[in-house]
């Protein structure tokens, strides 16, 4: 089987019924999708399969042979954050961070299909994604900001350290 993972072609050795989550984490070493519940309930393993958000823990890899898979690693690196990653950073949308990968991927798909900053629509798009730190308001703020195309003053150094807005911009 073959997958294109974050733009890179990969040969998959796992059996067809192996979950995509297991293949990504244990076979390919792509660790941003998290094993939060492994039963489709929490959303922490969500990745894009041909642009659509899917629970990697419920996806047998054999069912998506030949597909393109995108994870957070494929969105942007510290020195080249995507608009959505910048919005999450600016709005403090990541708390413990464990749900963040899944939230980002669901939000990425929402914005790609023309999603707006309508909060109810964002809630609908993120339904089924659990943030047990309960930071939902900031997550929705971030997705809305990215959907609007807000610009942020995030100065990212080469070392990957954001030194932003010191001095009191809210």
């Amino acid at each position: 089987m073959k997958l294109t993972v974050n733009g890179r072609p990969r040969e998959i050795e796992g059996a067809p019924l192996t979950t995509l989550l297991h293949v990504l984490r244990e076979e390919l070493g792509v660790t941003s999708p998290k094993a939060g519940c492994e039963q489709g309930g929490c959303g922490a393993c969500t990745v894009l399969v041909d642009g659509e958000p899917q629970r990697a823990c419920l996806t047998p890899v054999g069912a998506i042979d030949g597909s393109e898979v995108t994870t957070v690693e494929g969105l942007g690196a510290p020195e080249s954050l995507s608009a959505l990653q910048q919005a999450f950073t600016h709005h403090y949308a990541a708390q413990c961070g464990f749900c963040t990968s899944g939230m980002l991927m669901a939000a990425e798909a929402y914005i790609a299909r023309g999603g707006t900053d309508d909060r109810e629509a964002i809630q609908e798009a993120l339904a089924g994604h659990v943030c047990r730190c309960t930071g939902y308001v900031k997550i929705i703020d971030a997705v809305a900001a990215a959907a609007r195309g807000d610009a942020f003053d995030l100065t990212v150094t080469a070392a990957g350290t954001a030194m932003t807005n010191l001095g009191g911009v809210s």
Partner: protein
Amino acid sequence: MKAVGARLPRYDGIEHVTGRTTYVDDVRVPGMLWVKALRSPVHSAAMSGLDTTKAEAMPGVHAVVTHADVPLLEYGHLSALGIPADEPLLAKDEVRYKGQPIALVAAEDEETALAAVDAITVDFEERTPLLDVRRAFDDDAPTVHQWGNWYTHFEGEMDRRQIRKGSIDDAFEQADVIVQGVYRPAAIEHVPLETQVALVVPEANGRLTIYSCTQALYFSMGVVAAHLQVPLNKLKVVGGTVGGGFGGKVDTATETMCALLAQKSGRPVKWRWTREEEFLCSSTRAPWHMEIADAVTKDGWILGRKMLTLHDSGAYARFSPYGLTKHSFHHTGAYTIPNLSFDGFVVFTNRVPTTAMRGFGVTSVSFATETHMSRIADVLGLDPYEVRLKNANRVGDTSPNRIVYTDPSTVSVVKALAGGMDVELATEYAAMTRDPREGDLLPAHLVGQLGNPEDH
């Protein structure tokens, strides 16, 4: 003070949004084994005939551990503070809660480990469990714990946390009304998105490197060292990245058992609980049973409080004596009551051991006391804000454990709350401050309880 009022970047923010944060489950080491546990399928039973021979002989299985492999079987989470140990790392002769670990297997993959767990045999002689704290004191209640049905080792070997202040009998004699309430918040599972997980790597120099999701790294280090009977310098504990804890990762849940398996197999081992294990076997916030009877006057002064608390500790003590102690110190809430009689028990049941969760021991009593304040207002036909402001902690008042308040915030918080709810307070309450009670503002019943903030 450059940071106050400034927008500061989270030190781990960029790592979180780029998927680069390395949680325990993301650490990669070659040759790692997976762990699965045999857990008690019943709430309470005598246990015999534990046999792991078949499991050990299975291909792909590298180590099996039981109680016989633990150098110090019983160690308490608060042993270092003088609270005696009561909980075996792995069950020996009996199981006291459903999900209690009995044996662990480290194997090449999770499927092999699960098959080996199934191959372990053990006999249970099931007993009637005790699941309701209110039955713990009955003559015919099942005995849950080696110390009986409640903790008996508070200072001076007292069997309860007890507070006596002022004269409770006088308060109840002077009262116009007695207002009673029973409050029973249920257990809550923390449900961190990252389940309990540890990875332990045996190093060539004889040390163990322990990757832990703990919220309390030095607790974990001490607990592992004690069970293994090794000095601290044999352990390198790597923590600090927690995928949600909320108090549930204060207990040392996985590190010690992984350390034993790493020692025995000579291989790195990882134990990552399933969501089902997390729900069924991990510690929860305790269910509490609280009974309050307040002696109050018609105009809303609380003269005295009698309170009984039963804290459901589950099958073992863990941090519960500490949690109940905090609870007792807060049993008047944000208010000053001069005459107190409090008795709190750490009660054992055949439920999962309970632990900290966001305000350990205090959220329960805050729920009870705030609900009770509103109940007093209801019973007396008074404004609930005014009853709160009247009895609010003021500078110079003393807490149940006789701490003199120097910086109480009750008045400002209640006034802010009223403002937020568009509630118009009567002039005398709107003008109230936290300043010491004196002159007309000092009711007779509070004269004797005032402390001097300068003494604090």
